[in-house]
């Protein structure tokens, strides 16, 4: 079966499991002929799947919540929660004295308007009991937000933890000089990126979806076990990437948002009903959505591989 799959971003460390699964023939073993394309952001990837241009994709779960709230009749569903935590984080320089969320009051943060961290910031503020309106935002392109922080022109940024930390390092700021406030560490319940499928594909080729997830799950576990090897598949896909950098990125992603306590307890890819409800509610509040979608509509665990296969240490 042919299957078109879109990533949320470019071929980088976190995309390793997908590329590994393809390169090692795990997809082929399920009878799938998978094409993996790079994306240019969660929103774009999301649209690609929503419009049926792509059969499946790897995108931000919260975008799905927002989309579903605005298009209640959509049958778009998440099937495998890859990032158990949202990678969103507030990053500041330690020397600026901002070390806890409350220190952000009255400060200026830089991020693109579509940044997941920026959009979910009200949830972060609420969990930490300060007024989200008390910070000022500076809208910038992803490419320069870290530059602005490094130059001290803004007090902090929001972004994916693993991306921003590495970007800051490239700008000569060591990880030890940064304070990284991962949302989930500060009381936010949001989920991160999930694998989603277009309604049409889901309805017509359920077997293919199941096979895809099975293959992916296998690859993900392998990646967790041996991230160094997994990262080489990124290099194979795109000769230009810096292998060391992507390996680090992959490891950071796996450690901070994939292999979480919850994932260790319940297995990779799954969600708990309780947290899911809270998470959706948080999103609805933070994004200022008019309706609250049904959590059961949003995540469909039916295609997940057996729990035993998904367990990690």
């Amino acid at each position, binding site marked *: 079966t042919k299957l078109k799959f879109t990533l949320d971003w470019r071929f980088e460390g976190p995309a390793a499991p997908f590329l590994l699964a393809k390169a090692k023939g795990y997809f082929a073993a399920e009878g799938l002929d998978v094409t993996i394309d790079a994306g240019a952001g969660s*929103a774009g990837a999301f*649209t690609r799947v*929503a*419009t049926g241009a792509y059969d499946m994709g790897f995108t931000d779960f919260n975008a799905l919540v*927002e*989309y579903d709230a*605005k*298009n209640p009749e959509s049958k778009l569903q998440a099937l495998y929660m890859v990032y158990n935590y949202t990678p969103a984080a507030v990053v500041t320089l330690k020397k600026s004295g901002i070390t806890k969320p409350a220190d952000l009051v009255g400060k200026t943060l830089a991020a*693109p*308007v*579509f940044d997941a961290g920026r*959009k979910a910031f009200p949830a972060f503020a609420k969990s930490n009991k300060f007024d989200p309106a008390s910070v000022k*935002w*500076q*809208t*910038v*392109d992803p*490419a*320069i937000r870290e*530059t*602005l922080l490094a*130059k001290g*022109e803004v007090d902090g940024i929001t972004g994916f933890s693993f991306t921003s930390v590495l970007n800051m390092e490239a700008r000569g700021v060591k990880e030890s000089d940064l304070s990284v406030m991962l949302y989930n560490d500060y009381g936010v319940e949001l989920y991160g990126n999930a694998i989603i499928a277009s309604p049409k594909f889901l309805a017509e080729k359920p077997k293919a979806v199941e096979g895809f997830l099975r293959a992916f799950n296998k690859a993900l576990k392998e990646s967790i076990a041996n991230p160094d090897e997994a990262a080489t598949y990124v290099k194979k896909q795109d000769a230009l990437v810096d292998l060391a950098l992507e390996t680090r990125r992959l490891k950071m992603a796996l450690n901070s948002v994939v292999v979480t306590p919850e994932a260790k307890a319940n297995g990779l890819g799954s969600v708990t009903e309780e947290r899911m409800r809270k998470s959706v509610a948080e999103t609805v509040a933070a*994004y200022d959505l008019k309706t609250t979608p049904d959590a059961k509509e949003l995540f469909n665990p039916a295609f997940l591989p057996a729990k035993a296969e998904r367990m990690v240490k």
Partner: protein
Amino acid sequence: MKKLSPKTISRLAPWLLTLFVLVCWEAICRGFSIPTYLMPAPSQIYTTGIELAGPIMEHATHTLLTTLAGFAVAVVVGAVLGMIVGSSPVIYKAVYPMLVGFNSVPKVAFVPVLVVWFGIGTVPAILTAFLISFFPVVVNVAAGLSTLEPELEDVLRSLGASRLDILRKVGLPRSMPFFFASLKVAITLAFVGSVMSETVASNVGVGYLMMSASSSMNMPLVFAGLIVIGIMGVIMYELFARLERRLTGWANRGQNAAH
């Protein structure tokens, strides 16, 4: 029914065409039920546009001013550079490859650099608008000058006119049709440049508006932004077209003659 005079027809034509395009667009959106988040129908865009007219206008004004500033610089710099390039074959040969190379490069790549140097906001947007739009002016002015009929040049040379005189009295008037053609291209590029820069780093402007609308999946608003830019572009064009008609009527004499 009265027959329409050719003048009325040509006055109505752009409106009719616009209407026609809008109707087709609406029909396609409805007919194929294209989802809103992909491509909203004009009616939806209109509703959203009216609803949010206030903020849209604010952002649009900002973008317009930025664009005009960048465009003005581009026209001046472009015309001067074009004159220099167009009147000396050696400079032409020397400068052109560099200019072409520079202009083949997407200007977005420079916006971060500009932002870091000039801070976020209007200055990088003006500079981007300038950088993106001066090239067509250079090319066309240079082309106009270098295709100047030597016979006309000789009229001035025979009077002992200086190179500057020749440029002013023959070169520039002769290049006007080229110059105005380039303005039409340049103004559209200036809009593209400033909007692009606004999407990269700004808290105001249509570029920002579109980014923020698209991040909250409000596609009708994104398209409303696009359409507002388009309309501003048309208005600017109309202004130049008037100026052009006054200044290059001589070159268009064939069109006006009653044949």
